[in-house]
């Protein structure tokens, strides 16, 4: 398998191509333009469709159209552009269409700045759009994972007929890192529900997000929730680092987990029994992992936002031990040293139980 260097944004694009995605719609926005441009440069070579849409709104609906045909399709944007897609994302979930949406988050709220941020966690996992639905949300922490989780996102999207999201940030999108290219896959899923030529079937396919009766609408919700429970049971992904004997743990995702790894290593060298829990799937949130470490006396959730994932950590821990938070939105990146100080402060303050 080939090893090379690539930007995180490009790795997503390259993975999409290798996952058989031949349709990309999107609208420029920093800091994810490399992904848009990777698709612009490469899709034509694969007889694929790259279409710059007139807006994120239109792009999302183009994506919806392709998704209805069952072909692998994606779009990407950054925070304000993702906000514009919320209606359509809700439609995708309702119509049970697989499609990949990439959010290379920037510092908000509002127009904000293109500095890195993780402030769209809630939007991604609690449903920024209306209605009860979920996306499978992945939080890569390396360029390799930008690639691997993109492949997985297409796979699981098809498996569960559900839209998926890669939630990254400007750092992970813009950085280059050594990466092993994924093997191109052949798409296995049969999709009897797709629209298109009606030759070998004696039924019509309808891709709709509003059934005919109120009862069917409730049933749709029941069906969606059953699917979500299944995904929660099967697809929680997490990395636990030096957790086995940890008496305190940092919880962090994406780039912050890398900074936290540095903090953990450094503190371990100083004798602190610290570990790291890194959610790889943000939804389903890997809550099961927390039960595996009953010896942990406290958690510090570190995020590049004002405290979002920390709520899911608290829900997972359910009051068993204190869960602290360190972070800031709008473009702040916590240095390993700062994380270390925070952890040390808590551990030494005896504020663990």
């Amino acid at each position: 398998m080939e090893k090379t260097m690539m930007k995180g944004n490009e790795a997503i694009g390259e993975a999409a191509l290798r996952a058989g995605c031949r349709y990309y719609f999107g609208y420029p926005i920093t800091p994810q333009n490399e992904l848009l441009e990777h698709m612009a440069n490469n899709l034509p070579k694969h007889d694929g469709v790259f279409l710059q849409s007139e807006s994120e709104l239109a792009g999302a609906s183009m994506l919806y159209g392709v998704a209805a045909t069952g072909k692998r399709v994606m779009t990407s944007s950054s925070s304000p552009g993702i906000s514009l897609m919320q209606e359509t994302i809700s439609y995708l979930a309702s119509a049970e269409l697989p499609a990949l949406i990439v959010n290379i988050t920037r510092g908000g709220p509002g127009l904000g700045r293109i500095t890195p941020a993780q402030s769209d966690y809630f939007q991604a996992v609690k449903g920024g759009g209306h209605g009860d639905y979920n996306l499978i949300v992945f939080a890569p922490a390396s360029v390799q994972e930008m690639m691997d989780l993109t492949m997985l996102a297409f796979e699981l999207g098809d498996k569960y007929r559900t839209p998926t999201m890669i939630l990254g940030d400007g750092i992970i999108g813009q950085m280059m890192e050594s990466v092993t290219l994924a093997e191109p896959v052949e798409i296995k899923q049969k999709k009897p529900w797709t629209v298109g030529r009606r030759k070998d079937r004696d039924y019509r396919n309808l891709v709709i997000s509003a059934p005919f009766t109120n009862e069917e609408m409730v049933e749709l919700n029941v069906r969606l929730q059953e699917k979500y429970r299944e995904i929660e049971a099967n697809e929680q992904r997490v990395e636990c680092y030096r957790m086995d004997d940890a008496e305190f743990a940092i919880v962090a995702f994406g780039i912050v987990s890398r900074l936290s790894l540095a903090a953990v290593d450094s503190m371990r060298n100083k004798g602190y029994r610290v570990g790291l829990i890194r959610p790889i799937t943000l939804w389903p949130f890997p809550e099961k992992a927390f039960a595996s470490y009953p010896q942990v006396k406290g958690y510090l959730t570190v995020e590049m936002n004002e405290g979002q994932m920390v709520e899911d950590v608290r829900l997972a821990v359910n009051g068993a031990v204190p869960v602290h938070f360190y972070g800031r939105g709008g473009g702040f990146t916590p240095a390993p040293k700062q994380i270390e100080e925070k952890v040390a402060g808590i551990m030494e303050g005896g504020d663990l139980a």
Partner: protein
Amino acid sequence: MKQVFGKPKSLTENPFTYCPGCSHGIGHRLVAETLDELGIVENCVAVSTIGCSVRCWRNFDVDVVQGAHGRGMAVATGLKRALPDEVIFTYQGDGDLAAIGMAETMHAAARGEAITVVFINNSLFGATGGQLAPTTLAGQWTSTYPNGRDVDWTGEPIRMAEILASLPSTSYIAREALTSPKRILQAKKAVRKAFDVQINHNGFGLVELLAACPINLKLKPVDAVKWVEDKMIPYYPLGEIKNTKGVG
């Protein structure tokens, strides 16, 4: 005896759920007759949009994708790009196509997407109870401007067909009215051409059909149709506006 008029095959068994005298039924029939003629019911995908016709998937006997309000042509763009060999059409109201959907409409037309658009202009938002549409006539009552449309406040109504015709990449644009058998037969020809231009020339075809919404005009069906004839047609002239590929 031979049947000389009947229900097109491309319609399902479901009856129309529109109000008495609503022109949507005629619009549906003309599309279905065209699908019958072209024999494309098995390689056609319809895009249903949000308006009274949101559930036209219950009637057209084709695969249907229901898009978000106003985004019909963007959905159709995705479908056509993914299924270049299938016939793709949208069925859209004036609120959907010209109000919230203005950007998607303009851009799909500007790109010259090879799709067919059936545009039902009934001068108002039917589904939500008769509010102002971009197409509402000057002075016309709506539930949001009960004193009639004041063009100084909300502007003159928009003639979408002409605007779209002015975009270089559109191929076929026509406007007809569903107000009399003669006009309906004329409209049928235009619908057919709007499909032909897609199938034979990979072109963007749109047919605007002036339609009656008796309920929200608060008129009896017969009077509503007459209103369309007398009030709408003078502002929205009928006929072929553009036909660059010479379909006919």
